[in-house]
């Protein structure tokens, strides 16, 4: 039953993603990709549980590596997205001039 519920969430979120992302203009496709990349760094949540739970030594080490990788993904992903979007933040100068 839980898995059916999860499947609901997955399918509905997939639809939301599809409709929202279809509307993103080509101008922002690169930031879009780095944004989704940063968001999928949410694996960090799983990695934290693996590193901090009482799963044994090997699991803790694997979890620790997973936390490092996911945290790098999240930090770098959001920062680079922000760096790119800062360039598109201002008003369109050409249109304002018209």
């Amino acid at each position: 039953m839980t898995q059916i519920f999860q499947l609901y969430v997955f399918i509905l979120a997939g639809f939301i993603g599809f409709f929202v992302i279809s509307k993103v203009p080509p101008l922002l496709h690169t930031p879009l990709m780095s944004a989704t990349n940063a968001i999928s760094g949410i694996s960090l949540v799983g990695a934290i549980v693996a590193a901090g739970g009482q799963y044994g030594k090997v699991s803790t080490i694997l979890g620790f590596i997973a936390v490092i990788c996911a945290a790098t993904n999240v930090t770098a992903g959001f920062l680079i997205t922000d760096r790119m979007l800062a360039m598109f933040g201002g008003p369109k100068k050409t249109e304002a001039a018209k």
Partner: protein
Amino acid sequence: MTAPLFALLAPAAEGGTISGTRDLFVQGSYLVASVLFILGLRSLTRPADARLGMQQAAFGMLFAVVGTLLNHEIITYQWIIGGLVIGAIAGYPMAMKVPMTAMPQFIAFSHAFGAIAATLVGIVEYRHAYDPAIIGLQPGLSSGTAAALGFEVLFGALTVTGSFMAFGKLQELITGRPITFKGQNALNLLLMAVAFGSFAWLVIHPDAAWAFYSMVGLALFLGISMVLPIGGGDMPVVVSLLNSYAGLAAAATGFAIGNNVLIIAGALEGAGGFILSMMMSKAMNRSFGNVIFGAFGAAPTGGPKKAGEVREAKTISAEDAALQMAYAGSVVIIPGYGMAVAQAQHVCRELMELIQKKGGDVKYAIHPVAGRMPGHLNVILSEAGIDYGTLLTDVDDANRVLHSADIAIIIGANDIVNPDAEEDKSSPLYGMPIFRPWEAKTVYVIKRGKGTGFSGVENPLFFRDNTLMLYGDAKNVLGSLVKEIKALDEGH
């Protein structure tokens, strides 16, 4: 009012015990994160709001992390804190230093990292379920959870090596040319079949550790062998596809550990990558399967060459070209990845400003597949200080502007302006949406040499009557154009 809703999200929250409140908070943080992620992506539909929206999404991530730290399963914190600190320290300089031209390899690298995390979490979960210390206490994995873990390591491991391969190709650590050998597709299909066989076995017999680990191994190998035959020009599709796989791996993690925020975030990324790879394939006039199994650049087919006919493209000096450009009413610049390779974007902006100062209108026509990832040239030009209002990212819009333009300047682009795509049915480019620079009065082509584009196809545009070639490094040619226009002013 909200109590029943939260009770649904966190069935463990009963009666307001300490652990109940805590679970409520954990689940609440995930819900907030999910909402902020969706709003963040939605903000990307409006360039002016995008930055704020994504900053909110980053806060969502912070919420989810803080929420997770309160999870009652977590006993020790030193490894978590250590990992977070190392990750943040490693990620910060990476994100701040990487130039926009290197964005595709950076994203590929980042995908690999996320996928390593997903894969390792999958392995930890699997090991935990069959830990000899607790094996008698719990029933092991259900088929459903085994399937989720299987998907997780399959997509995760595939993305890890696939992304590293893509990184290597983009960074030119390995050749950007397709690497092919006989029976490659057969080998890939065989590997895939064995991997799916192991997957099926794992679902039926969740305790078959060999099936689980052989899937990890096969997927790692498959990631390499799938990206190996794909050429540099096809990278936008590959990077998008890996984006999608990384999302699916994260979503599968969510299924395996019963966490909705992972499922939602993974589904969002999966959908995003899927849409982008479809768009890229379409813009390249190729089917998905053709990109993955086609090895495009390996054997340039290039339509039947008219044998014996020696055609010579007309050239023009920078001095003469500069004179024409300086007094043009409307100019459309069509940049390709060659412009970024030559680092010519800054001098390109200089040229644009000089033309604008003389009253000319300058626009850029950006093809969806120009560059090494979707939208790549937009960020490269914006970084050079070019106002995004001048970027035409729709092929039809750009063609309307080109139709009435005085001058089209093509900088380091080739296939996206090849008239064969519309005129020659035997061309491999036929049907690809392209720009029509020849509709402008004069076309200037800045090109490094007389070679062909990534597809290996010759471009008849260069031999048209209104096309003039400026051979040389894009940065140098543009530099001399700028110099000539400035000299023109001083002459007055």
